[in-house]
């Protein structure tokens, strides 16, 4: 075994293989930077190049790209709040907060170093896990996979910033959106209202970039100022490494969780990154800073999302079950070389397996190192006002979302979800559970249905794996309740934070600014209506297809009703406050729904809110206008009209900036289709 490992390493010393690896790493890094392309884009661009190569060279190139895509996709999530994948949204929680406090460089260094370690540990894990993979995969039946999806959504709901009821409501809303399309069990269409476009379900990239990315553009375009705090670019690489080393145990734990989760086909990768975040929160003594820029919230998940890629290769090679499109394409490539996936691959092609392991390790280190060197210049991006970044970002993000399905409808869905994301953000409703719910909706339904049909009655609930997951889910809640009963509350140990404690250092002025106002009350009522409507519509589905939508809609309805009740409580309380106390400062916490405000402060806040709303409305209208232009004249033409108009009238940049910006963007769009596997949407006039 060691012989094979060493000879594989020796073969990698071959300069032509190293060159292929380097090309793969560079391509992976560049593609990862563009939100929405991700691993699929990376493999799609490289695959045609590999036809006709030796299998070793082709593998080196593809693995090189796959290993680093999740390193560089952190950049958009941390700096711009635009995660291109479900796993990047986890890093975003703390990474983006940190970047907005002017510490973008610190956030990025931590993320890149963790990615590197995650990749390395993943590669070692890949080697060690090969003999263990089979029993591990076989011991995870449908009931365990079902519990894993539940755990993923609940962790996201409980751990995201904000209150638990709002988190759960957002999670149910995401689950509901995920159910749009063809049912996995009966192949009938649900919530598609006769549209063939919706029968495919909503595209993941459109959801992720809409709910986070576009909402971010709309809420920040109004701010002419860069960040509220000056960007700190101080502190050399040494400082970054030193800080990172203090979190080494989080890195290792995150990576191990990532490998384990990646090995489980289907649901592992998304749930795994949340489990990594969950364990970081659960094992921390002081949890108050999570969600506001805690380094531990970056290190663990970032290490996990790279090792997940390594773990994912195990079911791909050993069982021929790829965990995602990128590994499916890798599988296809192996097939064209006559390499059959299956347990025999370990004996028949051991040298190739080790080549993959080594290539993965080397690529992880090289990719993270390149990114780490570039952190300083990347972080400077946060100095550019969002109003100026806006149009370019919009054009690139919409283009990224278009690639998944090649449907203009996806772009409309994305803008619509941008509006939803804006209001969720403004009312302090966490958006991460929404995204995770969306991703896990179909697997959850699939494994619930399979569990219910393949096992007699409730016997599956007694399986050891199920019991362990149930314990992970329930014990912390019981523990928190117990503590509360004993009266030793205070340090919110149930994972979510009341956010009353201490002065709020939050720099994001929109986040939660509309909590406790008419807007959040309206949102709660609207959600009740949405869940009620879904419940009513699901009555028309067949019995099997109805099960999950009904369950989700009912639970969502209950959660949304609790939200309405909470809103009503705030209203009553505020009315009472206004009557008895005048001018007495009661609280300054700007981002909590329970914060009470005195009148002068309230007036000022109301003005700021109106300003934010006006700008957001204008920005979303501009996005819709852009899409209309795209449908008329095609993407390039629409960009040429939209960009200068937006820059001159909304961002009010100098003429020269507007012209150069537009010309550069136009040239990029012109060149992109020949460089990357990118299609530009066509208009009817073309």
């Amino acid at each position, binding site marked *: 075994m060691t012989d094979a490992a060493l000879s594989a390493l020796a073969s990698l010393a071959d300069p032509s293989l190293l060159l292929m690896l380097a090309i793969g790493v560079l391509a992976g890094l560049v593609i990862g930077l563009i939100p929405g392309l991700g691993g699929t884009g990376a493999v799609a661009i490289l695959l045609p190049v590999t036809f006709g190569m030796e299998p070793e060279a082709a593998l080196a190139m593809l693995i090189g790209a796959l290993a680093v895509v999740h390193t560089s996709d952190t950049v958009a999530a941390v700096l711009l709040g635009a995660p291109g994948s479900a796993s990047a949204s986890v890093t975003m929680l703390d990474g983006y907060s940190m970047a907005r406090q002017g510490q973008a460089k610190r956030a990025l260094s931590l993320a890149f170093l963790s990615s590197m370690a995650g990749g390395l540990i993943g590669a070692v894990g890949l080697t060690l896990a090969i003999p263990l993979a089979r029993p591990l995969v076989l011991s995870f039946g449908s009931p365990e996979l079902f519990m894993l999806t539940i755990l993923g959504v609940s962790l996201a709901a409980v751990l995201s910033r904000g209150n638990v009821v709002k988190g759960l409501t957002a999670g149910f809303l995401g689950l509901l959106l995920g159910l749009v399309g063809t049912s996995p069990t009966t192949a009938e269409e649900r919530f598609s209202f006769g549209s063939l476009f919706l029968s495919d379900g909503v595209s993941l990239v459109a959801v992720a970039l809409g709910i986070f990315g576009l909402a971010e553009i709309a809420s920040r375009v109004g701010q002419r100022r860069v960040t509220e705090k000056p960007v700190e670019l101080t502190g050399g690489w040494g400082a970054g490494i030193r800080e990172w080393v203090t979190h080494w145990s989080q890195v290792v734990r995150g990576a191990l969780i990532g490998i384990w989760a990646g090995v489980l*086909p289907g649901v592992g990768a998304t749930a795994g990154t949340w489990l990594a975040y969950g364990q970081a929160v659960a094992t921390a003594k002081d949890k108050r800073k999570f969600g506001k820029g805690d380094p531990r919230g970056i290190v663990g998940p970032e290490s996990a999302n790279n090792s997940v890629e390594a773990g994912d290769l195990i079911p791909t090679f050993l069982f021929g079950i790829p965990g995602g499109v990128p590994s499916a394409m890798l599988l296809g490539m192996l*097939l064209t*070389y006559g390499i*059959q996936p299956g347990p025999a691959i370990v004996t028949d092609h051991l040298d190739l397996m080790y080549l993959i392991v080594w290539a993965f390790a080397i690529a992880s280190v090289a990719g993270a190192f390149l990114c780490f060197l570039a952190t300083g210049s990347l972080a400077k991006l946060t100095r550019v006002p969002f109003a100026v970044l806006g149009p370019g970002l919009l054009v690139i993000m919409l283009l990224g979302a278009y690639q998944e399905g090649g449907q203009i409808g996806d772009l409309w869905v994305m803008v619509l979800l941008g509006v939803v994301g804006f209001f969720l953000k403004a009312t302090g409703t966490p958006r991460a559970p929404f995204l995770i719910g969306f991703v896990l909706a179909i697997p959850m339904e699939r494994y619930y249905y399979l569990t219910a049909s393949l096992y007699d009655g409730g016997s599956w609930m007694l399986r050891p794996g199920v019991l362990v997951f149930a314990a992970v889910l329930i014990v912390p809640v019981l523990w928190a309740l117990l503590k509360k009963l004993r009266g030793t509350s205070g340090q919110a140990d149930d994972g979510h934070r009341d956010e009353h404690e201490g002065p709020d250092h939050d720099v994001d002025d929109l986040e939660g600014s509309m909590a406790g106002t008419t807007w959040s009350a309206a949102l709660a009522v609207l959600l009740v209506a949405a869940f009620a409507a879904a419940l009513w519509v699901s009555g028309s589905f067949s019995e099997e297809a109805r099960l999950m939508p009904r369950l989700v809609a009912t639970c969502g309805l209950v959660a949304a009703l609790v939200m309405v009740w909470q809103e009503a409580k705030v209203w009553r309380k505020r009315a009472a406050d206004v009557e008895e106390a005048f001018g007495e400062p009661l609280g300054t916490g700007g981002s909590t729904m329970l914060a009470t405000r005195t009148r002068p402060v309230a007036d000022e806040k109301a003005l700021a809110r109106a300003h934010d709303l006006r700008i957001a409305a204008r920005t979303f209208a501009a996005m819709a206008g852009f899409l209309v232009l795209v449908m008329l004249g095609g993407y390039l033409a629409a960009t040429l009209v939209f*960009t200068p108009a937006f820059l*001159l009238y909304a961002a009010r940049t100098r003429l020269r900036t507007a012209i150069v910006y537009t010309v550069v963007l136009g040239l990029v769009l012109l060149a992109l289709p020949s460089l990357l596997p990118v299609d530009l949407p066509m208009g009817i006039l073309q």
Partner: protein
Amino acid sequence: MTQHVDVKDVTADPDGSAVPTQDPQEPQDRAMPSPRLAAAVVAGFTALAVGVSVLGGDLLNPAASTTDGDYSGETVEMMIPLAEGGGTDTWARFVATELTHEVPGSPGLAPVNDDGGEGILGTNHFMSSARTDGTEVLVSTASTVVPYLLDMPAVRYDFADLRPILANGTGAVVYARSAAGVQGVEDLVERDKPLVFGGIAATSLDLTTLLAFDLLGADVTSTFGFEGRGPVNLALQRGEVDIDYQTTSSYGPAVEPLVEDGTAVPLFSLGQVDESGEIVRDPNFPDLPTVVEVYEQLNGEQPDADALETYRAILALTYTYQKALWVPEDTPDEAVELLRSTAEEMGADPEFQEAAAEVLGGYPIDASTDLAERIGDAYRVDDAVREDVLELLETDHDITID
């Protein structure tokens, strides 16, 4: 003309720098650039945009034409109506790459994946907009053929309006878990406890296996909802399901080890339809009986003629001619004939056969002169067959197609 307007506007730009230069970091109170200039810049770019969309489209995508069957300098666009990375995608990319190398003039190849509606959207799109000059090719596979067969409302294509270039089949083997009490085909019927079959959806490739169970009267209950055949194979190893099928290319790695260690028993192959329309043993599994043989073994007589005809028709459609490359009906004969004959020569080339062994899964490329006729027969499904299938779906699986 449009170009001219644009140039003038750009040269008017230096006047704009009369606006005091400011650091981009403090633009909050910046006055709007003069409205006239701003409007001029936007108008200039609009003119450029109109120019780009009207003229640029043709310049960037020069129209191809191969009416004379000359492919030099052309690019063949291949519509793959499924996602990157699947079995069909791998097959199509490999076969088309080899084919375009062989075609005189060595045209380029541009595969396009449009995976909407499980293949239906992309195929609809091809049907409505493909160029008819031999530079656009469609890939068909079971997931687009079954909805066509069932006449689903979303289907707006008709294989009768397309012309085949080449076809390639595959086969499948049904196997069961020994621990569920299955030693051979006789354990399929008259059971105390029905066998659990794991499937993806009754309206997918699973349909053929369901028809086989129906023909045999096998005591099987079906649970659909699995993500793919790989997960069903794992579920069988875990004991969650009892009976499964795998296509030829995955049988080796996924099932053979289970058969060797006694976990599973192979029962029968779905068979192949030969050139005379008979169901024969799968050349890749010469030792396994076909469904028809199993029926005879169990019942001592031939199956009912109508039921057999339904099975035969669906087998031909979903396995024997499972994957094919097509061009639009109005494509010039020269181009079609050139592609077909090149494919035939390529299929007979031992070098290609060796390179393609794994991708083709042991079934030859079929591009002989009578392909169009045979494939036409297979795809022209009788109403009686269609009704049989719809009835099976409705009575056994509660699925109605409206």
